[in-house]
């Protein structure tokens, strides 16, 4: 073997075998390395016979490179281990996605919200400038993400160990599986609650909110601006439409494209009306026996300003609701109309 290469070939081969051996378990190390060494020697010998000369360094390198990186070669001999095995991995992945969606994502949104709308929070966190605040929030977010994801991973690694010993996941009962769910089905309980809630809202609305004078007591009187009548009738009409829609959903508990579109339209109108109301300086006046006129005006303006400040939040919420409604229309269209269209085209063909 010492004649196989021009420059100390034993050294290259020995270094390779040593590198493979490093990753092998002690009990098998010597045995595996001896067999690997023998195989490589046989291969080198065959090549030398074929060429009629000793191998040079490049040819020796090529043989070892073809055999593979030492770590990978050793890995083939090791028992295949995984922190979280294939049985638990889908659940682990699902939990990670839930954590990201409902904790790590909202964490960022809450931070943005606080920085945008809370002046005290903003003041407390921008003492080192905006860049400092972003860097600080970024590192806090990463720390939170690291701790959360590590905790989930550790829990699942422990579960994996328990599962590999007890095989508890293999004991299951088909009868305990959740009922098959049609995504277009509308739960009747939800529709019933919607009908009752809308009716109760309508009664309360007519009883309490039909007048511009919201509060009329000797100590305080609150009056809304004349524009209120639009909102009163608008919201009342919406409640009525929503009651009818919920009643139809109760009787026919599957979304159709028409009803889903109706829901999108009413939600958009509702959100639009609400946004307009927030910006409409709704409160006309506050008067009271013990309230000075200047103070009453100050309170009125503060309330109107406070309502206007909520506008972006309501707008964002409205956009989210509209997106959910639009997605519903898409889903209904896909699951109900697309097969029907296919059938019609097939019949026509």
């Amino acid at each position, binding site marked *: 073997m010492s004649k196989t290469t021009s420059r100390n070939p034993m050294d290259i081969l020995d270094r390779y075998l040593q590198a493979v051996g490093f990753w092998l378990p002690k009990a*098998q190390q010597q045995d*595996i390395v*001896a*067999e*690997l060494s*023998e*195989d490589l*020697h*046989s*291969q080198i010998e065959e090549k030398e016979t074929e060429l009629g000369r000793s191998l040079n360094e490049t040819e020796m390198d090529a043989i070892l490179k073809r*055999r*593979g990186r030492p770590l*990978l*070669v050793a890995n*083939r*001999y090791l028992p295949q281990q995984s922190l979280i095995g294939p049985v638990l991995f889908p659940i682990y992945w699902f939990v990670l996605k839930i954590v990201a969606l409902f904790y790590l994502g909202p964490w960022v949104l809450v931070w943005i919200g606080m920085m945008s709308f809370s002046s005290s929070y903003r003041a407390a966190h921008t003492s080192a400038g905006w860049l400092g605040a972003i860097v600080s929030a970024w590192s806090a977010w990463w720390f939170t993400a690291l701790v959360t994801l590590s905790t989930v991973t550790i829990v699942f690694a422990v579960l994996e160990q328990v599962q590999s010993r007890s095989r508890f996941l293999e004991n299951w009962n088909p009868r305990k599986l959740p009922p098959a769910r049609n995504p277009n089905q509308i739960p009747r309980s939800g529709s019933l609650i919607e009908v009752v809630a809308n009716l109760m809202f309508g009664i309360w609305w007519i009883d309490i909110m039909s007048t511009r004078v919201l509060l009329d007591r000797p100590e305080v009187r609150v009056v809304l601006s004349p524009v209120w009548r639009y909102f009163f009738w608008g919201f009342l009409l919406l409640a009525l439409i929503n009651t009818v829609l919920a009643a139809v959903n109760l009787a026919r508990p599957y979304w159709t494209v028409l009803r889903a579109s109706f829901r999108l339209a009413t939600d958009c109108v509702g959100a639009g009306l609400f946004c307009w109301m927030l910006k409409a300086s709704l409160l006309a006046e506050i008067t009271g026996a013990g309230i000075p006129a200047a103070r009453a005006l100050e309170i009125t303006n503060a309330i109107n300003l406070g309502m206007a400040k909520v506008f972006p939040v309501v707008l964002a919420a409205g956009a989210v609701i509209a997106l959910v409604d639009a997605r519903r229309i898409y889903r209904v269209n896909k699951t109900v109309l697309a097969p029907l269209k296919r059938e019609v085209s097939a019949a026509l063909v």
Partner: protein
Amino acid sequence: MANGTQGGPEILENLKLELRRGCLIVAVLGQLRTEQYGYTLRKALADDGLAIDEGTLYPLLRRLETQGLLVSQWREEDKRNKRFYRLSPAGEQILTQLLEEWQNINTSLNKILQEAQAL
């Protein structure tokens, strides 16, 4: 398969790998009805059209030995220590059963393919 399927060759390679995985075990057990060491075994398999890389063969031999289907012995040949493998009695039994299973699969596949051709 070739037209339209992106990554077609890769899919084919993976499917061929899956198809070969079980066959290779039968082939190795079959070859080791006569004693051989790793290098000559690999050559013999390659000569018969079932090339197998060293990184797969040697761990497979150790696994089969751990399962009691092979026995091995270090012996000197041509001035070098070599590990010779051969089928154990338990391995012979398993091989017979595996070959029966192989025949059954082959028969079923032929039947399925003939039926499909007849359609």
